[in-house]
């Protein structure tokens, strides 16, 4: 069994294809581990392997964030308001991956409606970081990240609105890719902020990310009017150097507010990039420090509109305490939504309300334009822009739950790329001690490129990954994720 767990998803797919490994045994190995999960990473686990499908993904089972609709399987987006909801259809991306040979292993825990950076805002309770169970895995795709890091799943799907794939990937020591906006169909994803939400892979290494992503993109989905034909195919990365690659480092996102240990791992990785032949120069993103403020207008505004549909009429929870219609709506929403979701609905409704629309929503949309322009200027001189993924390593459970702004600052380095709609990848680049001391924890290195640059981005990340030699298996030295602690 342990030999199976050692295999990357791509290696497992290869072993299945060559007949060395039985797809049924592969599924059952992970199914048993996922069912014994002690990190609260899974909220639902398959009872048996679905009928085998031959395909390029080799039968390697896939963990899927709760917010992807899966037919007949609970899909609650981490919320009490969708208690018991089993959708009558499946998200396009989950359907495509299953058809290509990645069967559904289970659904993973997340911040409610993907609102959070720690996976503590879940109706199912918090997820534990496999590197240190007293710490958060990041969020909102914390269940997917923890499951992959702890080898409870070979690979996983997450979604990223302002950093929800990249930040948990960083805090759990794995790879996470946020695609170009529109590259992956959003059909069947329970929406948070529709102009920002994107599905992406969370994987043990860059090759696995490329393999999974290669089957996520494709022809435009007629059921998602914002989806696009991806130009060309995603290739598995082979690059071993960075000769001629120009990397820009924005001072705005790599100085103030970043933990010292994170900065030193980041700078050591830039040194390594130089050694591989890249040029590394400062680059300016003058509006990036305002990205978080704009994001916390735009995303809650879209969320307040998207979440209007949860009213106790068509699915999920309904309060039985009210006997008239408006009271039923308001009490259902009071009982069904958690504190952070209520906060964002209030913030978004406030920003969209009469008298404030121009001052908040209109201005935030203009900041978004400036941020996209900053990146466009940057990419005239640079192939990629590099930053730390998150300002710190994994923090302790409960450390930031009482201060919303402190929690939001986790997304400081990831939100600008989301607003600009460009792809960005986080790879583990080393370990750093947390500020209060203690066991060294993973640090994420973020690389962002222009829209549709995923192939070159994955290739550069692969070259860095090979040189870094980060050992993700170290997570398991913190204890068996299937054993009580």
């Amino acid at each position, binding site marked *: 069994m342990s030999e199976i767990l050692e295999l990357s998803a791509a290696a497992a797919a290869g072993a299945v294809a060559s007949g060395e490994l039985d797809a049924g045994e592969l599924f059952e190995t992970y199914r048993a581990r996922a069912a014994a999960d002690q990190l609260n990473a899974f909220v639902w686990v398959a009872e048996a392997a679905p009928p085998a499908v031959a395909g390029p993904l080799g039968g390697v089972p896939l963990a899927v964030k709760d917010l992807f609709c899966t037919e007949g399987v609970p899909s609650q987006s981490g919320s009490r308001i969708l208690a018991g909801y*089993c959708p*009558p259809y499946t998200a396009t991306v989950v359907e495509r991956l299953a058809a290509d040979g990645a069967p559904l292993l289970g659904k993973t825990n997340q911040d409610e409606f993907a609102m959070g950076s720690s996976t503590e805002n879940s109706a199912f309770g918090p997820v534990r970081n496999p590197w240190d169970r007293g710490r958060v895995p990041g969020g909102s795709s914390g269940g997917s990240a923890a499951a992959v890091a702890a080898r409870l799943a070979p690979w996983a799907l997450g979604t990223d609105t302002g950093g929800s794939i990249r930040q948990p990937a960083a805090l759990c020591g794995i790879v996470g890719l946020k695609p170009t906006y529109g590259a992956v169909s959003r059909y069947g994803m329970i929406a948070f902020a529709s102009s920002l939400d994107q599905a992406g892979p969370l994987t043990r290494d860059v090759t696995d990310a490329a393999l999974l992503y290669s089957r996520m993109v494709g022809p435009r989905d007629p059921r998602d009017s914002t989806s696009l034909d991806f130009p060309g195919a995603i290739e598995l990365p082979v690059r071993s150097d960075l000769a001629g690659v120009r990397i820009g480092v924005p001072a705005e996102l790599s100085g103030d507010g970043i933990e010292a240990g994170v900065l030193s791992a980041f700078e050591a990785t830039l040194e390594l990039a130089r050694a591989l032949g890249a040029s590394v120069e400062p680059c300016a993103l003058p509006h990036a420090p305002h990205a978080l403020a704009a994001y916390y207008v735009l995303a809650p505004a879209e969320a307040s509109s998207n979440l209007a549909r949860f009213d106790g009429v068509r699915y999920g929870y309904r309060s039985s305490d009210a006997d*008239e219609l*408006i009271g039923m709506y308001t009490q259902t929403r009071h009982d069904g939504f958690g504190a952070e979701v209520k906060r964002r609905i209030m913030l978004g409704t406030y920003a969209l309300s009469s008298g404030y629309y121009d001052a908040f929503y209109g201005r935030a*949309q*203009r900041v978004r*334009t400036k941020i996209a322009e900053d990146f466009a200027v940057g990419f005239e001189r640079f192939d990629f822009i590099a930053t730390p993924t998150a300002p710190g390593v994994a923090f302790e459970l409960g450390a930031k739950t009482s201060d919303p*702004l402190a929690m939001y600052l986790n997304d400081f380095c990831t939100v600008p790329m989301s607003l600009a709609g460009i792809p960005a990848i986080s790879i583990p680049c080393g370990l750093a001690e947390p500020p209060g001391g203690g066991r060294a924890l993973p640090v994420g290195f973020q690389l962002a490129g222009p829209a549709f640059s995923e192939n070159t981005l994955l290739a550069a990340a692969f070259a860095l990954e090979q040189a870094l030699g980060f050992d993700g298996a170290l997570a398991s030295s913190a204890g068996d994720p299937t054993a009580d602690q």
Partner: protein
Amino acid sequence: MIEREEVRHVARLARLALSDEEVDRMAVELAGVLDHIATIEQLDLDTVEPTSHVVAVENALREDLPQPSLARELVLASAPAVVDDGFAVPSPQA
């Protein structure tokens, strides 16, 4: 600081019941976030076009062809209350 009455007004717009204690907490927490958001007031944005969608997509049109929809019983299966093949809700006048 936001006035409690304003918090209650926004909660009504959002169809969200809040307890008195939640109103108090929301007034403080929203004020903290809005203070941070207010930093964008420093920027000169008068000549800047707003962006609502980052990737250039012109109107995404399709042929208006009838397609099968989900079966009624499948859709109603998720509903908290069903009457006569429809979603049941409490009376607005009660």
